[in-house]
């Protein structure tokens, strides 16, 4: 059996608003094996995105343990978390989250440049070719369509050869046809790179394409 790349043990997350503690996630435990694909599904406000943020090291849990590639994320400083994200994690967001002041090529280069990779430009061009956007390398995000922006975002997510990829509603902002294209690209690149994929979605058809579905409701796994 393959080793786990992500382990959550009794994870809880609370927010405090005007002195009142609001529990968002309660007692969450699961494991994801290396190379596996999984989907977190649930209704709006169920805590899906919060869970994704905890798994990806974007936020800290209130209780419990999160182990990413055998690194305990609890108690790490923001800089240490940034290092973990840069070395092991790739992201795809519903709103694409490209840097508006950088061209498509520069956006893909960012994770590699932060990591000190040489020839980041050559590798970024290759990635853009894989998503079919090499000809749009010099364009700024505002000059690209939504589908094109998400494909640039896909290329960026794979730039540092991450061990695990987190995708938050990757097709949520796209029409059906473009969404389909992005889905196919996502799974294809994931297969080729052998990356673990965890996605958050409302779309049960998309979730069905993963090996495992984690249902979440009211902050708990069902």
């Amino acid at each position: 059996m393959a080793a786990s790349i992500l382990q959550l043990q009794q994870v809880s997350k609370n927010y405090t608003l005007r002195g009142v503690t609001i529990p968002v996630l309660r007692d969450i435990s699961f494991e994801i094996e290396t190379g596996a694909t999984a989907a977190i599904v649930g209704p709006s406000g169920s805590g899906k995105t919060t869970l994704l943020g905890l798994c990806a090291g974007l936020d800290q849990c209130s209780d419990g343990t999160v182990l990413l590639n055998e690194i305990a994320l609890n108690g790490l400083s923001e800089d240490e978390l940034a290092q973990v994200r840069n070395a092991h994690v790739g992201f795809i967001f519903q709103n694409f989250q490209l840097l508006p002041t950088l061209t498509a090529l520069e956006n893909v280069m960012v994770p590699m440049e932060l990591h000190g990779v040489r020839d980041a430009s050559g590798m970024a061009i290759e990635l853009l070719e894989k998503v079919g956007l090499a000809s749009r390398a010099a364009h700024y995000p505002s000059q690209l369509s939504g589908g094109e922006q998400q494909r640039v975002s896909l290329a960026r997510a794979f730039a540092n050869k991450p061990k695990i990829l987190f995708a938050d509603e990757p097709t949520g902002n796209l029409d059906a046809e473009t969404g389909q294209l992005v889905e196919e690209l996502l799974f294809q690149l994931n297969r080729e790179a052998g990356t673990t994929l965890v996605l958050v979605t409302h779309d049960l058809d998309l979730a069905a394409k993963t090996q495992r579905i984690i249902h979440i409701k009211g902050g708990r796994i069902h």
Partner: protein
Amino acid sequence: MAWRDSRKSRSRLFLFIASIVLGIASLVAMYSFNANLKRDIDDQAAGLIGADLELESRRKPSEAALAFVDSLIGLSEDHAREERFVSMARFPKANGSRLVQVRALSGAFPFYGTLETVPVEGALHFGQEQSVLVDKTLMLQFGAEVQDTLQLGVSDFSISGSLINSPGQTAFSGAMAPTVYVPLRYLEGTGLQQVGSRIEYRYYFKFPQGFRVDDLVKQLDDRLEELQLQSATIASTKESAGRSFSDVADFMGLVGFIALLLGCIGVSSAVHIYVREKLVTVAILRCLGTSARQAFFIFLVQIAGIGLAGGILGALLGTMIQYFLPLVMQDFLPVALSSQVSWPAIVQGVGLGMVISILFALVPLVAVRHISPLNTLRVNEETAPSWKDPLRWWIYSLIVVFVVVFARWQLRDWMQTFFFMLGIAFTFALLYGVAKGFVYLIRRHFPSKWPYLWRQGLANLYRPHNQTLVLLVSIGLGTAFIATLFFVQDMLLERVSMASSNNQANMVLFDIQTGQKDSVKHLTLDAGLPVMQEVPIVTMQIAAINGHTMADIRSDSTSELSQRAFRGEIRATYRDSLFESEKITDGKWIGEVMQGDTGQVSLEKRYAERIGVQVGDRLLLNVQGVTVPAIVSSFREVDWNRFQTNFRLVFAKGTIDQAPQFHVLMTRINSESESAAFQQLIVSRFPNISVLDLNMILEVLDSLLEKIGFVIQFIGGFSILTGLVVLIASVMISKYQRIRENVLLRTLGASRRQILVITLCEYLFLGVLASFTGIMLAVLGSSLLAVFVFETSFIPPMGGVLLLVLSVSALTVFIGVINSLSILRQSPLEVLRKE
């Protein structure tokens, strides 16, 4: 709608307006200062002159002039007489001496205002006994006390009071030679009225109430000119004092205006970003049926409201600042300055704030009309090219008209307005050009081999939404301002201190009588000091040029000769060779003439041009009653910057050698103690001789420049502070854009250090480029000032330049980094959720 829409952005809108608050404040402060000063001069003008009428002659008045003065005495209620000149005063107790201005008075002057002394009795009993009133700074310098002795010439006087204030006196008027009031009847006993003594003769009159003194002066104008008497009345003093200070206030107003223009650029840039952020809001409004015109007005109302708030705030701040101005300016003012709220100044400030913020915000605001409702579906920041919009060109024209009209109003002269506009346009164009050129160059020759963080920092300067242009203009202009002040101050001091270097003379002894000449020379040599120059001086007046007298020229309107040639006393010399500081430009230098030949004289070129004399012209000179003819043999160019005697008229030897004369001797002293000892020696042996020490002049000039520099820096500070506010506002506004960018970088794994380095690089490049450009502008401006105003050479002090570049860059980086620190504290998830 405008109110509702502004709810979430009011704090940010306020940032825009912070840029104009200081400009408005400086203008309101200056207008209020000007209004208060005008009122104070009006109220205190009588105390400035001390009499209803003052007549002044720079040479011993003729019999006719004295008879004229007597005729006025007949009309007056009271009168007074003064003889004013510089001489040495000795303080026996402190065993020290110093050059002072002697004001020998008879009569009850001043008739208006008072001589303020400590004790009060000093002024009350002045003139009754052989006592003097001594300037308080002079008393302090020599540790003198009332009842101590002061030696003037060969007479001893008792000090009866320390002089605190006198009519028309400012803290700086006596800096070079502090005042000593002496009863006129005791002046003769001092032996100071000798050949060559440069005495000003003044007559003061008090007329009965209701006497129309200005009408009288108008009637007597020709007669006064004929008698070479200059007049001043309360009204003319009021006018001239008001004029000179209103020039100062106008200059300050212009500095404030530059600060305001700088702020406006900040407003324009901030509104540009604001409009871009409102793209979706406007698109939604358009979808809901709002017309382009309505959308435009929603934002115009917001800007007008904020402009009004900025104007009010600026006016309040300006009104507060004007209460501090008397503290800064009082040393230069001859009247006690009062501070009162000036409502016209406040109304002007508030109006100006509103008009100017609307005008400059209109440029980016017109883009609102072109925002398509399609942006609700997909944000497209590209609109039609702005230069195609005719409204935009109208706005640009309006801005130019506004700036020209404002500058004209401030300067009251079209030529000055033209040069001011030219200077402003050149400065802005240069800074704009440098910013654009720099962006072009880094794009074209991007250093792709640099480390990533440096590249990212550098690239931020040309990427979309960059602030390079506005920051470069604001920081560059501020730096140019400080650097020019610094350079000019340095240039003036350098010019004087250079004169004291290179073993040149640094002490001058003047008023030496012919009989004292040899003794003074021996005394100097015995003291171990060199005699570097010994020059005879003969006083004279021009009586005729080519046979034409002043009366002929006055009646001949076609004459190219100036009446000025005949006015005032000329101090000339004779010698057989030129000095190093002189160069013949026209004609031929003639060093000696034989007995019986017509005299030859060389004129300083610019003086000759001013009075309209040509080489070959024949002058008839009145040398203390004896007429001497002379032919203009040549024109000389003279380097007046050297600390040595230079003359407008230099006669060939053999022309005026026998005329009554006095002498000047120049030497070089090496230390303060040597200077004091030598001055003591001279004053004790030859009390009529005055000594001028270049080092003392340097010290006085240094302190004077320091004070003037402080005033200018205080005023210029508004521009610099505005530059800083624009910088802070621009950085804070761009921070809203940067938050998302930096959080994304954090999400992708950038460490805190990496983001800090990127920010640091960006602001370092900006700071260095802006400060360097500003300094280049200052070097250019200072070089022009050096050539055309100060007539000297200018080499920028490299140490100072480097320090300025470093300080301005460090400040820019500091503000940039400090503002970005809060971004680093944001959790990535929090910000991403807001999307």
